[in-house]
């Protein structure tokens, strides 16, 4: 499936035409589809059943630390702004209870092979609290001791230095993702995220010293006052840092959904043409600097495990974007965290009040979720292949999923013809394959196979496809 992955080709006119709202497919069905009748009883039953497979899947833990000391105006994440360190203590108390309630449900031989700390700002927690949290996780779950285990963390460089990151390395972290967004001071002020190049450099020094396996840098295009020249300068300096991965997110301005975004004035945002040029600039420079385009917004060095996973066919789409270890069940811990156990998704309470209340009563804080049916599973597998490899072998996919591809997806393939005519995708009896121009619009191709998009007029709010 991944034998030959073509590099993408930037076609501004085409991209502009398909600049419509669409899901990012970090899950399928997408989170707005989760149902409130998926409760603690359902989750416990699913975990029990998943323990009873002949070879129960390994675990991937996602831990959400929701606190930030100041609001970045672009952010659409679930987070809480506070400078009160006592908040962390109250939160961790509940998080430990959740860990103690959750971990024993999994058979002890289900090893944790992947761990990811996201936020908010995970490094809101000082190193002592981090040590305590990892201790709780390691005490309650069975951690893998193999060197391939992945412990990743998102870092805000304004609140971390080389020493802190070295300590994280001692705790077992070996992957880091650093929020940079843009280095241009004017842009930084406009989004309330002012940080220096030296702060970022310091974090990377710590990560390299601690022999982190992968250093990732997050950038955002489409922010206020961004220009191609300025973004180009940011990219120049980022390349000097030699990150293993670069993720270039598109800013989605949805002020009616995210309160912090109301601080951003629409008139300061780059127009659609500049938006496109910003992404085109990133694509061109990163490719020239030797990065492989993984898909959507992700770039990685040829030897980075993400690029390796794409070559060997073990890449997956998940809540962190792209990831290896597709075979794991994901356990979501913390407020708003989403888990993926067997054929289900489940999400914790999205506010602290609900999260605390459940745990204070000795209940798991799950508030909604979804049982995927056979059709959901088939479509999820297909959308995953498209998002990860930009191509699907119809026969292999059909055999694997017990369907005759062209019959099962007759209507979807008709819908696809418009994209074929536009040169986004090629389709014949054997396969579907994004063209180099279509690779940047793979979400559009995946949307053809989304069973939920057609059926309701009120499409949930998604960000732009590019």
């Amino acid at each position, binding site marked *: 499936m991944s034998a030959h992955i073509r590099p993408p080709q930037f076609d501004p006119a085409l991209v502009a035409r398909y600049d419509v709202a669409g899901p990012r497919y970090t899950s399928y069905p997408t989170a707005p589809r989760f149902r409130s009748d998926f409760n603690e009883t359902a989750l416990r039953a699913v975990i029990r*059943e998943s*323990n*009873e*497979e*002949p*070879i*129960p899947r390994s675990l991937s833990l996602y831990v959400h630390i929701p606190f930030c000391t100041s609001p970045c105006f672009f952010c659409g994440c679930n987070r809480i702004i506070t400078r009160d360190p006592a908040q962390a203590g109250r939160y961790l108390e509940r998080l430990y209870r959740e860990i103690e309630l959750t971990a024993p449900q999994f*058979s*002890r*031989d289900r090893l944790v092979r992947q761990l990811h700390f996201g936020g908010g700002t995970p490094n809101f927690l000082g190193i002592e609290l981090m040590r305590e949290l990892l201790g709780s996780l390691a005490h309650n779950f069975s951690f893998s001791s193999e060197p391939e285990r992945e412990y990743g963390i998102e870092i805000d460089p304004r609140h971390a230095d080389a020493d802190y990151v070295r300590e994280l390395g001692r705790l077992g972290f070996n992957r880091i993702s650093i929020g940079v967004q843009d280095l241009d001071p004017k842009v930084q002020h406009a989004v309330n995220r002012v940080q220096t190049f030296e702060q970022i450099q310091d974090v990377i020094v710590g990560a390299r010293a601690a022999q982190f396996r992968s250093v990732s840098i997050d950038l955002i295009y489409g922010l206020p006052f961004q220009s191609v020249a300025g973004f180009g300068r940011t990219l120049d300096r980022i390349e000097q840092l030699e990150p293993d991965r670069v993720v270039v997110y598109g800013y989605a301005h949805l002020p009616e959904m995210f309160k912090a975004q109301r601080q951003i004035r629409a008139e300061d945002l780059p127009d659609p043409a500049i938006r496109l040029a910003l992404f085109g600039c990133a694509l061109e420079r990163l490719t020239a600097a030797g990065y492989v385009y993984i898909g959507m917004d992700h770039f990685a060095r040829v030897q980075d495990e993400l690029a390796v996973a794409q070559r060997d066919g073990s890449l997956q789409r998940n809540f962190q974007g792209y990831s290896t270890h597709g075979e794991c069940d994901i356990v979501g811990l913390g407020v708003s965290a989403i888990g993926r156990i067997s054929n289900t998704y489940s999400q914790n309470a999205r506010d602290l009040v609900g999260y605390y209340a459940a745990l204070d009563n000795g209940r798991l804080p799950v508030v909604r979720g979804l049982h995927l049916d056979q059709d959901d599973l088939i479509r999820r597998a297909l959308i995953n292949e498209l998002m990860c490899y930009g191509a699907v072998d119809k026969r292999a996919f059909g055999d694997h999923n017990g369907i005759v591809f062209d019959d099962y997806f007759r209507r979807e393939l008709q819908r696809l013809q418009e994209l074929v005519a536009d040169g986004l995708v090629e389709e014949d009896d054997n396969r579907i394959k994004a063209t180099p121009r279509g690779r940047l619009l793979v979400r559009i191709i995946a949307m053809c196979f989304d069973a939920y998009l057609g059926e309701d007029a009120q499409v949930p709010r998604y960000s732009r496809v590019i």
Partner: protein
Amino acid sequence: MNARYQVERLPEPGCSMAGDGDESHLCSTCAFSHACLATGFDRARLSALECVVEHLEPFHAGDFIFRRGDPFHALFALRSGAVKICRTEGDNHQQVLGFYGTGDVIGVGGIYSQRFPCDAIALDVTYLCRLPFPAISTLASQIPAVQQHLLRVLSERLGSVQRLNGNYSADARVAAFLLDLVARVAARGFSPTRIHLSMPRTDIASYLRLAAETVSRVMSRFRARKLIAVRGRDVELLNPDRLRDIGQALLPL
């Protein structure tokens, strides 16, 4: 005199279902159909012998088909689904004694004592035929092939229980278990290398007298050595010859 045979109204789940019998024909997967037909006994003739085969309502996962101590009146043939036979011992420990699938006959353990010596629990949606015992017994006395089939069922049961009591490695147990399941599916004409394990791994472990973790560890090892492919509960044997070498000692001759 009337056959109480009911024509099934439910759509058949999956392809391995047999409900193709009617007033004059036996279901193709009926454990006894081959034996009967080979000797010229069609359904009409069986009815004349008052051999009444009753199709039961479906059982669901966890339902008891019979319990230890229940009086024995009939054998049951699986038209589709999966059943485990087990005995619950003190402090709720459940010892699994066997797994049965489409075409298998369960209940033979009750023939001698006239009470079922163990529990039979459905692992999945399961469709059964009830074969009233005196009638089957009469049939066996008239059709040698039916008698032979009953004896075969009994001796197979004995053999497998004895073998598992022996001193065998975990690898041998798991390999033989997989091969045995495949052989039983293959005997009914389905894919000879793929099986669906509808039973929980704790049941497999109990049956094989191993810890659950050991079953998974052995299967992981087989997978790493490319002897099997595992996807959820579906297992494909990639190298049955090698597995046969490993499970040799536990396999029937």
